[in-house]
């Protein structure tokens, strides 16, 4: 099974069986981590209680969970979109850095020179164009030179992250700041919070809106149909009149724009500035989100809330039970591995059935 035929076989195809497997995979991961905690001398029951309290136990916890989920929805959509077109966008991390950075620079440069109705959309659009270019380049190299998109994306991830880091550290650093970050965005450009005293902003609505757009494109447009055709069988799509090179570039460009929104709305929403290295691997988590969500908008939202909740709750777990707050990455890693291995779950069930 290769990267090309991911969408057809590796879990991104909606049916009840794979939903059932996904839930089982998540369950198995939690049980396995419980055993790991037990072996290390922690009480898994208390730890999971703390995890739940930290992620859904209060209004603040829920807003923290949703705040963590927003970028994951964007990257989930990005990876899902590319998968439908038969491509694997592992470059989300680079796209969100370049997008977030570009929009922050444009926003800071514009300042208050233009009315907000122009400057805010302009800044956001600039970031999305940068993300499109970063993603489209992967598509172009793949389509024209037949170079594996995964390899190109790895390079572009590091180039984007290091390039933005260079500029923030050497040219755009906020005066007197100890951490490498830009100046705070002009007051009006920061998105308003939904829940008081939290970092959850109206970017949540934009994420949900993009889910609707995503659904609409694949349900009701020719472009969506062509993307799916390309993903299912590139040579048949070519024969059927789809311009495969152009569509490949476009798929990766759209995917890049979606991924860049994760970075852009971290900048305009959560942080109100560009911070060097702000993403704890959001782009990579997007791959897990798309797989778990089976490429559907509802699935992506649910998976993003699951992983957002894990990240939010892990802090609480660390404080309360002494488990390292990095335990969420263990759960996340196992969930990814088990979800990507439906045959293993099938094998387990089969054995039990005997």
């Amino acid at each position, binding site marked *: 099974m290769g990267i090309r035929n991911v969408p057809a076989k590796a879990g991104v195809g909606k049916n009840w069986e794979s939903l059932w497997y996904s839930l089982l995979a998540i369950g198995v991961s939690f049980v396995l981590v419980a055993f790991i905690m037990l072996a290390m001398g922690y009480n898994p029951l208390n730890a999971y209680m703390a995890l739940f309290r930290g992620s859904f136990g209060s209004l603040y916890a829920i807003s923290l969970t949703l705040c963590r989920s927003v970028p994951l929805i964007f990257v989930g959509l990005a990876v899902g979109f590319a998968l439908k077109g038969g491509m694997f966008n592992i470059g989300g991390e680079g796209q969100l850095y370049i997008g977030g950075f570009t929009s922050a620079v444009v926003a800071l440069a514009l300042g208050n020179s233009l009315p907000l109705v122009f400057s805010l959309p302009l800044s956001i659009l600039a970031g999305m164009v940068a993300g499109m270019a970063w993603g489209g380049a992967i598509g172009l190299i793949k389509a024209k030179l037949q170079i594996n998109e995964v390899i190109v994306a790895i390079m572009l991830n590091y180039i984007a992250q290091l390039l933005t880091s260079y500029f923030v550290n050497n040219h755009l650093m906020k005066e007197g700041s100890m951490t490498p970050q830009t100046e705070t965005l002009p007051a009006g450009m920061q998105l308003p919070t939904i829940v008081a005293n939290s970092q959850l902003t109206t970017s949540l609505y934009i994420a949900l809106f993009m889910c609707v757009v995503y659904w609409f494109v694949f349900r009701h447009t020719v472009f969506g149909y062509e993307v799916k055709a390309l993903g299912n069988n590139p040579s048949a799509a070519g024969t059927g009149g789809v311009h495969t090179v152009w569509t490949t570039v476009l798929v990766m460009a759209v995917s890049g724009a979606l991924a860049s929104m994760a970075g852009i709305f971290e900048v305009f929403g959560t942080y109100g500035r560009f911070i060097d290295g702000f993403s704890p691997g959001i782009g990579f988590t997007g791959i897990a989100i798309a797989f778990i969500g089976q490429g559907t908008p509802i699935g992506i939202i649910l998976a993003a809330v699951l992983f957002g909740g894990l990240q939010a709750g892990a802090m609480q777990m660390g404080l309360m039970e002494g488990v390292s707050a990095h335990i969420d*990455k263990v759960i996340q890693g196992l969930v990814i591995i088990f979800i990507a291995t439906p045959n293993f779950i099938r094998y387990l069930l089969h054995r039990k059935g005997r």
Partner: protein
Amino acid sequence: MELLSTIVNLLLMTFRLSIPITLAAIGVSISERSGVINLGIEGIMLLGAMGAVVGSHIFGSALVGLIVALITGVAVGGLYALCVLYFKANQSVIGIGLNSLAAGLTVVTVKSIWNKEGISGTVDQLGTFSVPLLDRIPVVGAMFSDQSPLILATLFIALFAAYVMAKTKIGLRLTSIGEHPLAAATAGIPVTKYRTLAILVGSALAALGGAYLSVVHSNLFVNNMVAGRGFMAIAANILGGWNPIGALLASLLFAFTQALRFQFSYIQMPEQISQIIPYVITLLVLVGIGRKAKSPAKLGVL
């Protein structure tokens, strides 16, 4: 004389910095030759680094730590092979899952042992050796004193791997599997068995590279101490043209750009620029060679 001394120091630092990347890059090269892309190399290096520290802590010997790291690498490689070869999971996704798992598990384990977040206690460090007499030569003597045995081991591994890949039945069969797995299978080559072997060897080498960082170059584990060297190894393998000697040379080039910055601090090359060079070079070379790249034909396709 001072110039010579600077050059010697620069070269020594290049070698030291290149070891973890080289070991992992040779591992990547072997497994990619068989058609398997293992993006989990970063995580495997991290687990190797942790395994070495835990082994060194429990047994009081860095050498045993290295062995524990090798065992860790083989075990994790086995898990990866099980997922992608036997349960037919997507290689890239499993690799990413492995990286996440490793980033978490290493810190959780370190905290459960030392009760510190993100950093372990100090453990036994692997000793160095000096060549008697030669180490007394002025200037050049630095090359023969206080050297890590792993420098020699790495060179040996690179040569041996190159020999195996180019001249032996195993190596040629691995290459044929990466080019055309179906034809290889038709010719009676046990494809899955060979790929498993390639993954296990590759993972063990990556873990050893990680262990170098924790118990040879230093004496403790720090959160995310591999810091992208796994991905750099993937780039080194590409730049090196998918063979062990090329991987070694590319890793040396990457390490050289880092060493330059440390050795000539007055150049004031920003850290990010020296780190970005490997990826830019690799990308440019990859795009420049384009279709003629020596990539195995069926890379990532099982």
